[in-house]
């Protein structure tokens, strides 16, 4: 099968063109490094089915970083290269184009973000550029689909054009080309550009960042609560008579215990019954999903607007103190939704050391949205103060663990060097698509794992294993952490699914102090199984063992410390 490669600088819209060509659902955002692994899809060229590959962005083929080497290797395998350019940055983007021309592969050039050249007063003579480069040049707008059909039909005209130039003269040639094809007229400063500068200068940028973070937080809570109160609460009340009569028809016994769970005062209690069809549906759908939805909606807007690289620049100094780039806030934010995509996106950090620190910090201190939602409902009745204590502790541990790892692990963090994209209005269609993909991923993961957790814990109860483990672990759980033995069931479920584990604390009638300690412990002691698998893949066995030891030690230390100082 023929292979078509999409190659270009980071953040020029390769993935949106890929998605247009193949119909494959992919994540698209407005920051460099959204695509961290090769994506493959298929499309039809006339009658022929061809493979399309989305290659992570690279500025150059003169490989200096690992990502660049991989991209350079990939190009050898391609039959046709679609070189995607940001047409508002022609000169910089042509550098890669000129290097590609030397590789002698059949090639087509897509001038993406064509719509933006219009409002920026940039005029590019496409025909002239085509003549100079000797390959087809097509203006495109990946986000809206403009020019994509033309791009596909041009693929049959793709040709290798060995452009003769002396390597040393490359930039001169590029400048000559740009001077010949591009005319810029004066442009008006838009509100966006004005805001761009304000949001990156520290004096105005830091207050703006704080306001944006607070707004994000408030919006997530507002939307989440709104959906719960106006939709899911009502839905589950309508469901109650149905499930109650189904439970009655089952009578008692093991099947009833698994599907419906324990009755509390003769009634199904959605949060405490612990049956597959009661708590198993209620926790992921009515307690967690609304917040997950709200979080990813807001995150999508932040990602697509182009704000995140600015936040990364403002926080770069702070993040360097804990051994990472400012850009590490991207995986951290993603991790607040779910640790799995968060852990995967740590690949944008260029060194192994940074990745290790980021992954370990994420596994120890970053609760996912499911867990956050459950901690809120668990501690909510005791006021905002106790919730703030939990997150405050996690933040302190996050920072001090980072400081510690940065000073103990040999090696340095390289300086930041990254492009900041312009602000863009998020495209509604791609925003909704991304949200839908994330919600789907949540469902595919949450429902099976919550079910598995409930099934598992019921078996452990029936077989008496839980009592046994409780006895063994009681010196740590009771004496060191000051929690009742029964918490062990929640800690076991936490290996499988964290939100469910927090939910299992509800029936235990814990004191506020115990709730705070167990919320912190459940976040820290071990990642859920889905995250664990990703961590193992990213870190390898040796580093994973190191990371796990750090987790356990820190958990025992922090848990014991809290038990000692909290009243």
């Amino acid at each position, binding site marked *: 099968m023929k292979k078509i490669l999409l190659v270009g600088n980071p953040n020029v819209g390769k993935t949106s063109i890929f998605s247009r060509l193949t119909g494959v659902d992919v994540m698209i955002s407005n920051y460099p490094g959204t695509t961290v692994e090769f994506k493959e899809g298929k499309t039809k060229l006339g009658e022929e089915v061809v493979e399309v590959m989305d290659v992570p962005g690279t*500025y150059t083929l003169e490989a200096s970083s690992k990502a660049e080497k991989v991209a350079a290797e990939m190009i050898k395998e391609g039959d046709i290269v679609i070189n995607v350019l940001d047409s508002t*940055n022609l000169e910089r983007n042509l550098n890669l184009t000129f290097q590609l021309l030397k590789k002698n592969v059949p090639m087509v050039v897509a001038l993406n973000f064509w719509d933006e050249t219009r409002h920026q007063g940039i005029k590019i003579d496409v025909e002239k550029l085509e003549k100079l480069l000797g390959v087809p040049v097509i203006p495109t707008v990946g986000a809206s689909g403009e020019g994509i059909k033309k791009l596909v039909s041009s693929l049959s005209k793709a040709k290798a054009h060995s452009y003769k130039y002396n390597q040393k003269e490359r*930039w001169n040639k590029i400048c000559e080309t740009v001077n010949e094809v591009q005319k810029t007229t004066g442009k008006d400063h838009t509100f966006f550009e004005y805001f761009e500068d304000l949001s990156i200068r520290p004096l105005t940028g830091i207050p703006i960042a704080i306001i944006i973070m607070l707004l994000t937080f408030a919006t997530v809570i507002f939307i989440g609560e709104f959906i719960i109160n106006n939709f899911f609460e009502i839905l589950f009340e309508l469901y109650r008579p149905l499930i109650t009569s189904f439970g009655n028809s089952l009578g008692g016994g093991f099947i009833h215990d698994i599907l419906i769970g324990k009755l509390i005062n003769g009634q199904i209690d959605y949060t405490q019954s612990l049956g597959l069809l009661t708590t198993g549906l209620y926790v992921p759908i009515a307690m967690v999903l609304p917040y997950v939805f709200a979080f990813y909606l807001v995150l999508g807007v932040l990602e697509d607007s182009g704000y995140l690289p600015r936040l*990364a*620049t403002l926080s770069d*100094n702070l993040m360097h103190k804990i051994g990472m780039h400012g850009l590490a806030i991207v995986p951290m934010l993603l991790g607040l939704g779910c640790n799995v995509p968060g852990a995967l996106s740590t690949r944008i950090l260029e060194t192994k050391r940074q990745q290790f620190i980021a992954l370990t910090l994420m596994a120890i201190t970053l609760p996912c949205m499911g867990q956050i939602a459950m901690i809120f409902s668990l501690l909510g009745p005791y006021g905002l103060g106790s919730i703030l204590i939990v997150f405050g502790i996690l933040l302190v541990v996050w920072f001090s663990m980072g400081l510690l790892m940065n000073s103990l692990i040999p090696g340095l963090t390289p300086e*930041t*060097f990254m492009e900041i994209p312009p602000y863009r209005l998020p495209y509604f269609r791609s925003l909704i698509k991304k949200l839908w993909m994330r919600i789907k991923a949540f469902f595919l993961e949450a429902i099976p794992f919550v079910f598995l957790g409930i099934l598992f814990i019921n078996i452990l109860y029936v077989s008496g294993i839980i009592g046994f483990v409780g006895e063994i672990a009681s010196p740590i759980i009771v004496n060191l952490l000051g929690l009742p033995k029964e918490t062990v069931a929640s800690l076991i479920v936490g290996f499988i699914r964290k939100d469910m584990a927090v939910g299992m604390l509800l029936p235990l009638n814990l004191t506020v102090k115990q709730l705070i300690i167990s919320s912190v412990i459940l976040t820290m002691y071990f990642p859920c199984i889905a995250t664990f698998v990703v961590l193992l893949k990213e870190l390898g066995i040796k580093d994973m063992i190191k990371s796990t030891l750090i987790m356990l030690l820190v958990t025992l230390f922090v848990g014991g410390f809290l038990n000692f100082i909290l009243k």
Partner: protein
Amino acid sequence: MLITLIELENGEVGEIVKLEGGLQFKKKLSSLNIRVGKEVKKIASQPFNGPLVMKIDNTKITIGRGMASKIILKVER
């Protein structure tokens, strides 16, 4: 007058006349079109030795101070 990128004022423009440092470093800079002859505008500098933000053509770039100290500019003052 010759200064480094660090010494450039916010909002000021200078022309790159020299890049110090090794070949790899120069390649890395030139991949983002930072090279001799280009005009640079400084947009912001983050406090406590944080990174700088500069603009070349239409591209904004965040760059650490160590790297910035190796970019030599000519300015009219």
